[in-house]
């Protein structure tokens, strides 16, 4: 009965859901680039300038993508570690910008691939610390302003996320929280689009099963 009601309500909300803005990272991205003198330049253009040693172009690229990079890394490691990862990734871009070629891989995908690899390396080195931090992050998200029911739901989601295999989890994070296109996310994980879709399907199924299990459904 409850499910039936939910289906009806969500059908009504379908249009609203489809017209809602994309994720937070893309919103902040737009806000950040609004007043920059480099906003007219696209990412590949910035990469060419960076390859020639242009620091303002580098700063602009970093501004655009830092929130997404930091957001991804923070879902796995603690803040100080995430900041180190972002710094390392951006420094690599600065040093290797000349090696980037516009052959299907966007600078954003390249950046996120570096962040992804560094994050996974960090996780392998400090699995226990990362586990602790996920709990900290969850606690931060569950601030006093959130009601108890929401808090429980978020806890269930956090547990379900942690239970997912690493690549399924990353596929979900990249597409949902980083608002990456399927090609971009596939580029980060170095898989085909079909393989990405498979990871996403299994990931979402795993999340639902885990949440249902916690709810005793």
């Amino acid at each position, binding site marked *: 009965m409850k499910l039936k009601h*939910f*289906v009806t309500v*969500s*059908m009504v*909300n*379908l249009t609203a*859901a*489809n*017209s*809602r803005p*994309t*994720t*937070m*990272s893309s*919103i*902040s991205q737009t806000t950040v680039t609004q007043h920059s003198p480099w906003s007219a330049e696209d990412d590949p253009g910035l990469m060419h300038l960076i390859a020639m*040693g242009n*620091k303002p172009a*580098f*700063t602009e690229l*970093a*501004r655009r993508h*830092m*929130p*997404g990079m*930091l*957001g991804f890394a*923070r879902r796995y490691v603690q803040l100080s570690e995430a*900041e180190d990862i*972002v*710094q390392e990734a*951006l*420094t690599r871009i*600065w*040093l290797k*910008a*000349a090696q980037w070629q516009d052959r299907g891989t966007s600078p954003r995908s390249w950046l996120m691939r570096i962040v992804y690899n560094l994050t996974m390396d960090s996780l392998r080195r400090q699995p226990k610390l990362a586990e602790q931090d996920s709990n900290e992050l969850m606690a931060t*998200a569950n601030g006093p302003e959130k009601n108890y029911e929401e808090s429980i*739901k*978020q806890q269930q*989601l*956090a547990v379900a996320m942690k239970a997912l295999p690493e690549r399924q989890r990353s596929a*979900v994070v990249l*597409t*949902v*929280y980083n*608002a990456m*296109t*399927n090609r971009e996310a596939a580029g980060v994980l170095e898989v085909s*689009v079909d393989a*990405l*879709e*498979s990871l*996403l*399907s299994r990931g*979402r*199924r795993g*999340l*639902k099963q885990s*949440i249902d299990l916690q709810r005793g459904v």
Partner: protein
Amino acid sequence: MKMANTTAIEMSIERVTTLIEAYGSDTQSWPEQERAEAVACLELSPLLQQLLNHEYELDALLQTDSVEEQVDEVLLARIVDKLPEQPKVKQNIAKLEWMPRWPAAMAAALTAVVVVLVVMNSPLQTVQNEQIALQEMDYLLWQDVTGQGSDEASDEESTDFTSML
């Protein structure tokens, strides 16, 4: 004609099912090139709509976990300040990209020529040449001192000639 359309819709239903299961209920997150066709198919299928609604709850839950990250100006300034110098070697290589690639065989032949030249001009070879020259000088001196040489031989030959006559 009708059968062909039905097959096309059935194929689309299969694909839309995959899209829903992979990307969730927000059609804006579906691949752009397939979106319009998939949404059109969705509108015709109550089954797909039900599937979509089933995914909506998870999407709503996932969205509550969105964390808005701002640009950390302090971190950005620190990163820019600590940027190392870009490698210049790579730039030089980029400048030489117009040059044709040398075949490996050509490079190997060039290396062989260089090796031969080096060996020819090596100190060992010079010493050997000097030793041969000294031996020749000794021989000439010995000829001068002993009086033996080509003149004596020619006398003998002439003697022989005379006797023959």
